């Protein structure tokens, strides 16, 4: 076909020629069959904005690796505590100031016989000041069986072990040089006596992988717990900032005029305040009244907050008061920009209500920016919390955050440097990976910004 037209351009048509001489067949102009139509139509599924963004994010190796590491840290913080037998608050009197993978004398003694038994209860491994078991009834569960026994005299510095699997002998032992000496069989029943206390039994002496602090608390457990507290604070603070900032910014941008002017002057005022002075002051100011309110009030809200502790709640209040200004400026900028778009004008011309324009046009187009800013807000909230806790103003013991762990470690930094370096490293990894994920999200959700 193309060939034919090349030889005779339309400007040189010879009127003497008949159609047949142009090599045009009537058959070329027949309607296409269904199969021909199908082969011509290029089928490409419409790709939604979010699918497109997800694809771009997946192609970003750095962000994907960062996300992977962050998920590992999340598992460390949220699942980790259930994998180790130590608790963040429990103090082990005999295991104070241990280095990584060090055992206290008692622990070492029990460890020397751990191959010879199936499981055990060791008084040295119990938290708190209990160096022994007082006389009374006790029970524990092992492999679906319940063992209950009675102690007629105080049991100190000893272990109760279960040996040879199903053969259920509960014995009190004394250990010397890695051997069991002088073990006394205890009579037991499978019926739990009334008022019996449950014992937690261990299969092994679990190592203190990063040592313990001066109160004998396991640092790994504390770091896991601290990471959890820090991450939760970061996320909640970012959400608070998101809600307040976007509502404020949206109202300011939508209303315009005098309202916008006044609201933006307020933002500027808060912006120019050296916030760190106020933050420090707020931490001290809020702590006591909050504590009083927690103690006095019985509402579920106060109870829920009091489990968080006054320190954390006052951090949230600080964010709600001072840190939403950046978010509100971003949202206002977005709204102002979107308001001028042709499709909004078109929607207005078609008679769409304000609510519909906000829902259909403004919100979906803002979401990308909101996600990016919120994601990048999390690490900065974690930063601020750790800074406050480091100065001794954030969370208070026995609760821990990564900042307070570093703060606790500062006094003994010359002797036990790992106490600061380990939580510090976890903190750095969290902030680093979140920053990288945030950058990746920005590139994925707002490709125009990518340089």
């Amino acid at each position, binding site marked *: 076909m193309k060939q034919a037209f090349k030889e005779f351009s339309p400007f040189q048509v010879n009127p003497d020629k008949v159609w047949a001489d142009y090599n045009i067949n009537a058959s070329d102009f027949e309607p296409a069959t269904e199969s021909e139509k199908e082969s011509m139509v290029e089928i490409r599924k419409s790709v939604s904005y979010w699918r497109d963004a997800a694809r771009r994010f997946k192609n970003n190796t750095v962000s994907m690796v960062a996300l992977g590491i962050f998920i590992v840290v999340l598992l460390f913080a949220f699942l980790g505590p259930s994998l180790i037998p130590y608790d963040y608050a429990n103090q082990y009197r005999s295991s104070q100031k241990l280095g990584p993978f060090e055992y206290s004398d008692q622990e070492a003694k029990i460890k020397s016989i751990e191959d010879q038994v199936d499981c055990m209860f060791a008084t040295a491994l119990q938290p708190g000041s209990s160096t022994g078991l007082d006389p009374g009834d006790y029970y524990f569960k092992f492999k679906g069986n319940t063992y209950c026994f009675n102690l007629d005299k105080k049991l100190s510095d000893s272990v109760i072990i279960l040996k040879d699997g199903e053969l259920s002998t509960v014995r009190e032992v004394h250990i010397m040089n890695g051997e069991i000496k002088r073990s006394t069989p205890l009579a037991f029943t499978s019926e739990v006596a009334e008022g019996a206390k449950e014992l937690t039994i261990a299969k092994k002496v679990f190592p203190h992988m990063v040592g313990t602090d001066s109160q004998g608390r396991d640092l790994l457990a504390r770091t896991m717990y601290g990471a959890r507290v820090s991450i939760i604070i970061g996320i909640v603070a970012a959400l608070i900032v998101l809600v307040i900032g976007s509502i404020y910014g949206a109202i300011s941008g939508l209303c315009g005029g005098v309202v916008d002017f006044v609201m*933006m002057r307020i933002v*500027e*005022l808060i912006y*120019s*305040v*050296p*916030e*760190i*002075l*106020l933050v*420090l*002051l*707020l931490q*001290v*100011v809020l702590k*006591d*009244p909050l504590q009083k309110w927690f103690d006095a009030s019985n509402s579920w809200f106060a109870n829920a907050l009091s489990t968080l502790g006054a320190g954390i709640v006052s951090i949230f209040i600080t964010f709600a008061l001072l840190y939403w200004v950046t978010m509100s*400026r971003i949202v206002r*900028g977005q709204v102002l920009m979107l308001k001028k778009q042709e499709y909004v004008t078109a929607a207005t011309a078609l008679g769409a209500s304000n609510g519909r324009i906000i829902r259909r046009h403004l919100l979906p187009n803002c979401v990308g920016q909101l996600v990016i800013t919120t994601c990048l807000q999390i*690490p900065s909230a974690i*930063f601020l919390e*750790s*800074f406050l806790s*480091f*100065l*001794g*103003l954030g969370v208070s013991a026995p609760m821990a955050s990564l*900042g307070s762990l*570093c*703060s606790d*470690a*500062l006094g003994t*930094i*010359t002797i036990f*440097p790992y106490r*600061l*370096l380990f939580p*510090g*490293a976890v*903190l*750095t990894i969290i*902030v*680093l990976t979140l*920053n*990288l994920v945030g950058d990746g999200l920005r590139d994925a959700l707002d490709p125009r910004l990518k*340089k």
Partner: protein
Amino acid sequence: MLIYIAKRLAAAVATLLLIMTITFFLMNTIPGSPFLTEKSTPQQIELANQKYGLDKPLVVQLKNYLVNYCKGDLGVSLKMQEGTPVKDILFRQGKFGLSMRLGLLAVLVAVVLGIPLGCLAAYKRGTWVDGLLRVLTTVGVAIPTFVLAATLLIYLGVKAQLLPVLSGSLTNWKAYIMPVISLSFYDVCYIAKLTRTSMLDAINQDYIRTARAKGVKNKWIVLKHALRNSLIPVVTFLGPLIAFIITGSFVVETTFSIPGLGKYFVESVINRDYTVIMATTFVVSILVIAMNLVVDIVYKVIDPRITLSSTDE
């Protein structure tokens, strides 16, 4: 220009007033009194309150503070160094000077190192130098100041024994090294990142192409044409930088036991030394507000395209 500066000055005074008022009322909501100790009797507290004017209504107290500050009188310490004029504590005992020396050095280091590093990364874009700098700066902005400070302390101070562990009043030049590094590290990294991005942005502009077409050497293009235009975001960052440096100084002064302004402020809040809290807030706020003002004006000088009257984005 003058009208702009006058307007900004008025806004600055308003901000300062607001900060002082908020601080004053917040401070007074802290339960307890600065004179409350285990031994003090109610009569003693009342006497002390009378002596320092704490029995007057709050509004009168606030007015007294502000009037005295205008006269240059910062009051006397109520608790931590009872009876000593706060002015003497801050200025004569060297607390203010100490923090300022540290802070200004850190800002200097941040600018002097950060901008060239950013230029280098942009100039060598895509090479290993750029890659290395990118990794370094990305990690750098994620390390909290106190982790860096403590790490330096452990490895340079305790293990290698190269530098003094306790910086004290910074009498020795060696004592400056670790605090200044920890204070400026974040900002060096941030400024380097910022400079690289805005430099690459500037390089794609038309005037750079023109310069290149004229045959100007690549080095001069970067140094003369691109740098000036890429400095604008960096200058914008200098305002918050001052605030960051102050934030950092709280941590760095605690870590290295430097008796500076930051450490003193934290102590005064914890001790409820009202006059010291107010005076320190006053001094630091003036510093921050003045710096923001200077940055805004410098901004205008660097980039004449920016109109000063519009404050919107």
